[in-house]
């Protein structure tokens, strides 16, 4: 036993030394990631930190987001067609795509339809041998995007053609397939792990077709990858990619300055000026694909009256919130979707901050001595870095128009649960970060009638709005969908179920030696196409 362990260690040492020797002349990019991945089988998880370390470097999907955009381009599928009734999506798969290899696995065949079927069937079919392959396996993103209800079956037409049959037409289907949970696994690798009785390794030693192949993970410390020489889209400009896990934002910045890492995400807002002033660093910035809002409970009086909601919206000084809460790293929101998203209606006019007009509107609506609660989230999110502070600013604004606000808060899990209740007392501060870049992912999830009592915190079900978004959901023509969503935003603004507060601006500091990095509007961190000057 001991001899075997020693030999294994020696072999590993020898192969690692070889890697190190080559590393001396190789280009290595170090990314100071903000946390540890939960695992490497991305379909099991929902956290961006996990996706950055698993699905993005190691895997590919049938379709991929264009770098820096929410548009979708071919990935492992070269092309696809949609049937006229919108119920069948047929994908033509790319040929000659190689899977990675590792010390324990060498692929004997290229990627084909079996891998696609396997990757989805394990999530869809409760009786699939891989459905519960690890303790507590749950496919939350797959479930969260309603895929079990949506996908009727997945058919292998031939080795390089796969057909998804849906239960109803769903325009965002293609965008869904570009998401992390739709990463394509190797069925051959899965079969080998099952035969060896080591199924749990699927989540620990990933094998994909992506631009980087996994080399090793030292828990909570370092993840190592190597550029995959046989990647179907060509080899990467860098040779090695290292994630140095560094949870504290100040320490990440110090490491960046000391040259211990080249890219460090999520800087502390207070450090932005310092980073901008440093000639050795570059600071990229982009509006996040998110929205922070305050949802009234439109089922409870007097908030069931759009006039009252509109009046309160006019009393919120968004600039003060941007200064106090976002410290400049945000922009005022007027629509429920962010400006970087297609179909954003820029013609919509925001409610101007006007205390006198707000007061007059409240009087007109017959509301006097209004007392209300504002719920402040107990956690930080990009769309709301400090909910308590935000609630205090709104409280001060509302006091000026005679509205007495009590601020309440609960533990995060409780907050999410209680805020869903239809008889909830008070307006809730919350927000959303886009999953797939489709407007449906904001408008239907957060404001659709199906979401009442769930993710629709305003408990708002307004038929004219609902008709528009439902029609857009089953329309495959993008221009037509854009029109419908633009119209829906106008209805939203008139009805004011929310006070739209802000979209955050995401900053990305990096060494000036780094080139080719593109910020992802969906918040992911991608290193394909990135280079570093020696």
């Amino acid at each position: 036993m001991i001899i075997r362990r020693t030999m294994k260690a020696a072999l590993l040492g020898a192969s690692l030394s070889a890697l190190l020797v080559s590393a001396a002349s190789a280009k290595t990019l170090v990314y100071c990631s903000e946390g540890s991945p939960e695992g490497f089988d991305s379909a099991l998880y929902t956290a961006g930190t996990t996706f950055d370390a698993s699905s993005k470097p190691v895997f590919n999907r049938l379709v991929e987001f264009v770098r820096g955009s929410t548009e979708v381009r071919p990935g492992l599928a070269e092309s696809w067609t949609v049937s006229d009734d919108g119920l069948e999506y047929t994908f033509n798969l790319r040929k000659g795509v190689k899977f990675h290899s590792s010390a324990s696995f060498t692929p004997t065949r290229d990627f084909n339809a079996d891998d696609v079927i396997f990757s989805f069937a394990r999530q869809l079919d409760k009786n699939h041998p891989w459905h519960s392959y690890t303790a507590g396996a749950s496919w939350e993103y797959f479930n969260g995007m309603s895929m079990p209800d949506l996908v009727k079956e997945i058919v292998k037409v031939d080795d390089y053609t796969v057909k998804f049959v849906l239960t109803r037409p769903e325009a965002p289907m293609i965008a869904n397939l570009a998401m992390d949970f739709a990463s394509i696994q190797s069925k051959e690798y899965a079969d080998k792990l099952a035969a060896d009785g080591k199924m749990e390794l699927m989540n620990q030693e990933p094998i994909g077709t992506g631009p980087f192949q996994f080399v090793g993970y030292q828990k909570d410390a370092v993840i190592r990858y190597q550029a995959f020489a046989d990647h179907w889209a060509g080899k990467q400009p860098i040779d090695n990619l290292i994630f140095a896990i560094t949870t504290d934002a100040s320490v990440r910045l110090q490491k960046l300055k000391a040259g211990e890492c080249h890219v460090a995400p999520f800087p502390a807002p207070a450090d932005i000026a310092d980073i901008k002033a440093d000639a050795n660093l570059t600071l990229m910035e982009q509006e996040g694909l998110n929205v922070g809002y305050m949802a009234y409970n439109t089922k409870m009086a007097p908030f069931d009256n759009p006039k009252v909601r509109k009046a309160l919206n006019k009393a919120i000084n968004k600039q003060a919130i941007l200064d106090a809460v976002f410290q400049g790293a945000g922009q005022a929101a007027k629509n429920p979707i962010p400006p970087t998203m297609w179909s954003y209606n820029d013609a919509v006019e925001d409610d101007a901050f006007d205390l006198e007009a707000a007061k007059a509107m409240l009087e007109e609506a017959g509301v006097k001595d209004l007392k209300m609660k504002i719920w402040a989230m107990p956690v930080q999110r990009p769309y709301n870095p400090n909910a308590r502070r935000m609630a205090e600013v709104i409280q001060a604004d509302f006091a000026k128009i005679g509205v007495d606000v009590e601020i309440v808060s609960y533990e995060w899990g409780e907050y999410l649960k209680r805020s869903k209740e239809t008889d909830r007392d008070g307006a809730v501060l919350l927000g959303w970060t886009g999953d797939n870049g489709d407007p449906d992912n904001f408008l239907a999830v957060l404001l659709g009638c199906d979401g009442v009592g769930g993710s629709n915190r305003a408990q708002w079900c307004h038929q004219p709005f609902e008709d528009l978004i439902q029609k857009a959901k089953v329309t495959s023509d993008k221009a037509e969908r854009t029109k419908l969503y633009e119209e829906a935003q106008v209805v939203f603004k008139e009805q004011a179920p929310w006070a739209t507060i802000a979209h955050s601006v995401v900053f990305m500091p990096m060494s000036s030696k780094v080139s080719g990095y593109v910020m992802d509007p969906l918040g992911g961190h991608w290193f394909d196409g990135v280079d570093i000057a020696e």
Partner: protein
Amino acid sequence: MFRFLFSRIGLLIPTFLGVTIISFGFIRLLPGDPVLLLAGERGISDERYAELMDQFGFSRPIWEQYFDYLVGLLNGDLGTSIVTKKPVLTEFMTLFPATVELALCAIVIAVALGIPAGIIAAVRRGSFTDQTIMGTALVGYSMPIFWWGLLLIILFSGILQWTPVSGRISLLYFFPQTTGFMLIDSLLSGQPGAFKSAVSHLILPSIVLATIPLAVIARQTRSAMLEVLGEDYVRTARAKGLSSSRVIGLHALRNALIPVITTIGLQVGVLLAGAILTETIFSWPGIGKWMVDSIARRDYPVVQGGLLMIAAIVMIVNLIVDVLYGLVNPRIRHT
């Protein structure tokens, strides 16, 4: 001696059972549950919520869950992490050497500097040196670890560039983790410069973690020494014409060390608590950081398993200290 040992071990059993109840109950007393946190803003349907609670076993009566937990413990099974899906014991054993390495270095620094500082302060009681040592100890004791760590990083790693910012070893070095102790593994790897790199990474976090125990040990040594220096036998030793260093080193220090040993033993708990913050600042992959993350995610099996392991270690170290104490001072064994 054996009776003393048995009585001490006998006491450990009910304490250990108490710890299982506290570690099991503590995380469940916190509002919120792992399934709600797993779903986040995205939300979860009531049916799916119930399904997941069933799957994780959280919908069963609490006493049944506790009983299963105890049965698992007796079989050496601490459960499986809800988040990483890995056995808790495996994760603990992977991360624990990093914490031990850091804590050992910290305690060595604390003892090596704390005891001499305490002796000097006691011998020069009331002098400027005494005041300086005790003043510094008080500052060290009251220093918030998080702030102190960042300050050292900015000064030594940022401005002076003497030490690396964080981590256990330079990313250039990559070798198998044979023992989990970076100092040993770096030596075993045979890679030139690896050991030096591991040492340089250990300096700042050890200093930060050693700060509070160092202050406590220095203060305890000083007060114990002062007490002993006033004893008759010390006066007799001086009267016999023994040199000052012999009196202090041979006669006074040996007796003064008894309460100091107890203090050092008690610092194990302080070190493990301090490791939580130190590891977070220095991106040190140990159990402190692991526990903090798991509490935030309500990863019940990890929190209860981790707490239990930490408590068991503190109890065992205290048992060893008790035994050592009994060996040094025979009067203790008989009481």
